[in-house]
């Protein structure tokens, strides 16, 4: 396999230098080993931290046939999450972040979805698992917390009923035992007066309380993996902070793995150990939270960081990413991000528009990977992007 990186390298020698104040030394952009490109089918322990993972997703592709053709919502996605760690999947709408997690839960309609690749949950393969076995996994080993607790809880059943139902699906116990468990969970997630709350309907709960109830329902079976899909997007800031604290504390207590799907990089910074950035169905950058947020190596990630007005930033003009995300039906050739990328002219030739860059280690060998043809990503970031971020 020829690596495009090496061709570009001849013309522009490595010029990576220096440190950034407060950031510690930046790893030099080491000589890349061409053989690393054969990493596509690497074995399980593929996490930025190097721990043994509980969830291993490899080369996952999710496609939906539509009237206009086959849409690849997720394309060749690989990641892994060990117990006790939080992976944040970041991306904008249509990037495939939710679709990929629905696949982990096996929630896609089989008749309308083509899934390939592998999703291993504690060693069990989810892709192709028959529905009746999948049902035993859903809600038990892996649970999901959804974005909008207002619409995600059944409006016509009491909150208590819904939580005990979740427990009784996976435990052959009497209603009383399940109720006891549900009350315990309500208490655990910080809902005052569980006995009264148990009998109430979702509309009698406030937004924050509803999300707590949702979390109680997700955790009732002590899942090893929790997928939280934009868990705080529908909530107010002060309530969001409460819920994020709650998730953090529960994770410390139960040691479960969390996949956090979000578009909010602030939430990522507060919650995540590892970060995966998705764009147009593909992973474009993957690494520890520190790597991705403090030493990002992909122009899309840079663009995201530059787009956010933060509470502590000086108020200069924002630098948004130009243009719009591409339609999944007609992805641009080469790198999907190339029409919006301000750095394509720094790559020799037309490679950005002709070759899809591979997801390669940014420093030649480490676990921090990115998908970009630029060969001096580190120096561009430190010299041009970082100063703008302040």
């Amino acid at each position, binding site marked *: 396999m020829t690596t495009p990186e090496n061709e570009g390298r001849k013309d522009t020698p490595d010029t990576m230098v220096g440190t950034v104040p407060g950031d510690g030394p930046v790893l030099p952009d080491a000589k890349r080993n061409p053989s690393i490109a054969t990493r596509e089918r690497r074995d399980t322990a593929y996490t930025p931290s190097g721990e043994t993972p509980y969830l291993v997703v490899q080369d996952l592709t999710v496609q939906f046939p539509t009237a206009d053709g086959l849409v690849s919502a997720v394309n060749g996605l690989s990641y892994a999450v060990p117990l006790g760690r939080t992976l944040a999947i970041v991306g904008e709408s249509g990037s495939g972040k939710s679709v990929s997690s629905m696949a982990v839960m096996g929630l896609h309609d089989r008749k309308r979805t083509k899934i390939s690749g592998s999703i291993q949950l504690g060693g069990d393969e989810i892709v192709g698992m028959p529905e009746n076995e999948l049902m035993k996994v859903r*809600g038990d080993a892996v649970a999901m917390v959804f974005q909008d607790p207002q619409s995600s*809880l059944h409006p*016509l059943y009491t909150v208590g009923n819904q939580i005990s139902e979740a427990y009784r699906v996976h435990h052959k116990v009497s209603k009383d035992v399940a109720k006891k468990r549900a009350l315990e969970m309500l208490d655990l997630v910080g809902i005052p007066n569980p006995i009264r709350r148990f009998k109430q309907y979702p509309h009698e709960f406030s937004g924050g309380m509803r999300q707590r109830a949702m979390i109680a329902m997700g955790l009732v079976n002590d899942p090893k993996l929790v997928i939280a899909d934009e868990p705080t997007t529908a909530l107010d800031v002060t309530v969001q902070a409460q819920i994020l604290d709650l998730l953090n504390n529960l994770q410390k207590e139960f040691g479960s793995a969390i996949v956090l799907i979000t578009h909010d990089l602030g939430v990522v910074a507060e919650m995540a150990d590892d970060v995966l950035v998705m764009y147009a169905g593909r992973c474009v950058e993957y690494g520890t939270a520190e790597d991705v947020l403090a030493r990002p190596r992909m122009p899309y990630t840079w663009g995201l960081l530059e787009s956010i007005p933060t509470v502590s930033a000086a108020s200069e003009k924002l630098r948004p990413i130009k243009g719009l995300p591409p339609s999944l039906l007609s992805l641009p050739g080469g790198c999907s991000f190339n029409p919006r990328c301000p750095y394509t002219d720094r790559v020799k030739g037309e490679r950005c528009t002709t070759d899809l860059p591979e997801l390669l280690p940014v420093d030649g060998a480490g676990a921090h990977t990115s998908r970009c043809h630029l060969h001096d990503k580190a120096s561009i970031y430190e010299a041009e992007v970082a100063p703008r971020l302040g």
Partner: protein
Amino acid sequence: MLYFVARRLVSALSVVLVTLIATFALFFIAPTDPAGAICGDRNCTQERYNEIKQNLHLDKPKVQQFAEYTAGIFVGRDFETSGVVQHCSAPCLGFSFKNDRPVTQMLADRLPVTVSLVAGYAVIVLTIGVYVGSMAAKRRGTFGDRALMTSTLVVSSVPYYIVALMIALYLTILYPILPRGGWTPPSESVGKWFLGLLTPWLVLGIYSCTSYARYSRGSMVETLSEDFIRTARAKGLSDRVVTYKHALRSGLIPVITIFGLDVAGSLAGAIFTERIFDLPGLGVLVLDSLNNYDLPVIMGTVLVASVILVVMNFLVDIAYSIIDPRVRLA
């Protein structure tokens, strides 16, 4: 919950009272001539006309007439025809001089027929219709779903009386696969009652199932795409529980609204079914009374029909509040 029921009851009763006044106004205050109608066109002499007017107190002030009519409903009243005094007991809705019987009795004869018919109909649409619709919703987009929906459209585009007439003609008379329609009171023989109603039930029920399947399919398709259905599946519940416990409960709400009005309507006038299958129900009674210009009967039926409508609405409200706890707040 109790307060909710009580509040609804109060409002239902007030609607009945308004209907009573409106009905009375329609027939007695409007420029109609009840006495002339009763007297008939041909051998109506001036004396007989005046006598009828007197006997019916049509010469009294309207308010008194209304008071007497209303009082009749609660305590009964006496009518005098050709010197004979007829007593019309407690829920008295007037007296049919044409048939020489109190209206209440005539309605009481017919009501069981119509109620039997509509009850069977209700069972069929609520089970088969809703079930078929839910199945189609679950399998939406498949060949089965499309075939089913197309066939329901075809069936409901043929007028009901044609379908009913054809079935009566071909399947009960020419090729008697199904029993012929007819009325036997269940007190006499439950078997005969059932057999006589079977064909009308099936015809009316299955014909309406086509619309109910479509309503419930639409409502279920919407419900099945709700977030809380995804939550239910994420809990590990089976497809069956998700569809028939979680989805059906909210999917039923719009269907119930239609059902309540529909049943009330059918009670007051399943005219075609009754005529075609030879059932002496309320619909046929109304038809006959209209032909004879038998005012007291028409008025009585209108009143009963509106009470039924109000009662059904009340029941639908209660059903709502059982299904949807949010309604109880309103």
